[in-house]
């Protein structure tokens, strides 16, 4: 059961002819396990209400995403309404996540690609790694001070087990002959399939 904690801010109180307005609206954390709480916070002008929906979203190439959707509506008299939507990712017991690292440089010898990324700390606070699966090419992966070679062919590594999922990641991968000769063939991003779990307190 998801528990909702609402923090009601001071709302603009002056009686004026202004339109309703949403100044800010957050739903945190951005990813929750089923027993976690979602905290909603907003500042708005006008009478506010929250609409709640659950949404399933296809997530190529992985499983469906389960989303909790909160819509804040602000009304004021007969003025047009304002609304904003925040979605929170609902994680199940055995969740997988696709980590995306962008390639925008090559090694000095131009024989390997380098892809980097910083995994969102806001979204993944409270989430730890179980294992990491490589894409279909060999990757030298560095994260949280550890480096390991994933040989491709769906290799699964527990090298980062129990370490935080968020933070900087880097991969290096040797280029094929074809890629060395034609840079347009080099993938512009590397995807890692990461099994995740709640961080142990």
């Amino acid at each position, binding site marked *: 059961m998801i528990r909702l904690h609402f923090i009601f801010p001071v709302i603009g109180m002056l009686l004026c002819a202004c339109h309703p307005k949403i100044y800010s609206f957050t739903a945190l954390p951005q990813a929750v396990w089923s027993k976690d709480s979602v905290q909603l916070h907003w500042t708005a002008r006008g009478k506010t209400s929250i609409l709640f929906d659950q949404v399933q979203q296809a997530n190529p190439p992985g499983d469906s995403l389960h989303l909790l959707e909160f819509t804040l509506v602000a009304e004021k008299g007969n003025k047009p*309404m304002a609304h904003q939507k925040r*979605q929170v990712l609902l994680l199940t017991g055995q969740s997988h996540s696709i980590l995306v690292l962008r390639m925008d440089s090559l090694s000095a010898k131009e024989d390997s690609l380098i892809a980097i990324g910083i995994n969102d700390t806001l979204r993944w606070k409270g989430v730890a790694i179980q294992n990491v699966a490589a894409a279909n090419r060999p990757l030298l992966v560095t994260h949280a001070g550890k480096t390991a070679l994933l040989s491709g062919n769906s290799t699964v590594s527990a090298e980062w087990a129990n370490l935080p999922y968020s933070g900087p990641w880097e991969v290096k991968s040797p280029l094929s002959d074809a890629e060395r000769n034609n840079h347009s063939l080099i993938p512009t991003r590397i995807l890692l399939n990461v099994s995740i779990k709640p961080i142990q307190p």
Partner: protein
Amino acid sequence: MANILDQVKTVILVMMENRSFDHMLGHLSLENPGLEVEGLRNEDMERYSNDYNSALYPVYPLANDQPLEGDLPHEYDGVDAQMQWNKVTKAFTMHGFVEAYAKSGPMPNPQSIPMGYFPSTLVPITHFLARNFCTCDHWFSPLPTSTQPNRTMALCGESAIFNTHLQLIPIRQNLFDWMKSNGIRWKVYHDGFSFFALYNKLWPYVLGNNFRRFDTFYSDQLSAPTDADPQVIIIEPCYQDAPRLGSKQPNDNHAPLAIGFGEDFLRQIYLAVTANPKRWNNTLMVLYYDEHGGFYDHVAPPPVAYTTTGNPPHPFNSLGPRVPGILISPFVAPGSVFSKTLDHTSVLQFLAEKFTPGASFSSTVAARKQQGIHSIAEALSVPPPRPIPSVPLQPIAVQTALGQHLAKKEPGDMETSFSNAAEQLLQQKPDQTKKKYPELVAWKDLKDKKQI
């Protein structure tokens, strides 16, 4: 080809605002996998997904037609970020739409607004037109930037400006002068204050008799054709950013508008265009969008170079993202797809081919042709006669759980430009403006009283 061009007696141009091809018509290939159209495909969903902060943001079908939370970035720097040039592969990845959106302020949801696309049920008229006429699936905005430069390219085939801001837009050559000098009859039907008012050089036209209210279009179309009829008709929606003439709902499809208002506007246009078969039989209607408005499209624009003519000049190295383009006419095969590269100057190419054969619209349009921009004339044919396809007669209802309206956004440069143009017209041409646009007097009064 000359024979077809001769048979086209009336060219109708309808330019809407700020939606990408995938956003409006990407559903064509998802819902009809056998259709040879460059829309979205299930097997390529991973490739389309944008990434931001190392997370994937997939494209997704919008669940309903409701106003968006706000506008999306679509100025030249935002478009640059959206197309995301990769310096290693030397190609656009088209993976930066969510990042550009996030950098404009909002925290992106997993279902991020730029990545949403409409299923056919939410854009029934656009879908109807695409399935019954000719979809142009490689129609790009001429410049990877915003409204004012792209509309100027459509009007002039060149642009002195590279971005949208508070300005009366300077122009030299333009479609209206070209039509006048070549003796081409034309009319503009506007469903609100005209975008052409932003060009002070065009004010004599804007205040003249060739500019007519959209609500006269149907009856004009119904009348029997004569030799005095316009050969070129431009239809303008009610722009969200412009002063209202009357109390009408804007219907230009500019975000954050719900799309249903624009769909109903297109329905009304189609009903009028097909109301008189004698006119319809010789009509070509072009439906296109000025630019993509910040919505995702997966096709990397080709490298067509252009430098704006203003001071300082601004170089662009490619076209902008794809926009919806549909040719509606008895001179296209039903449900056909035209895939050669087009942009807004493809219309100017076509007009010159039809009305001034052997002479191009301008040297800049000719130069774009040299760089690979084709004419829409190439999409025309003479298919077997068929009954006029019937569009739904009932108005499109905009249904949203949140009501039909959205809180007014803070005025941007486009809105301020419109206001500025309206105020200058009232100031500099008071009698003509009050006679032509009496609603502007009330608009100005309310504005001065800060009631709008």
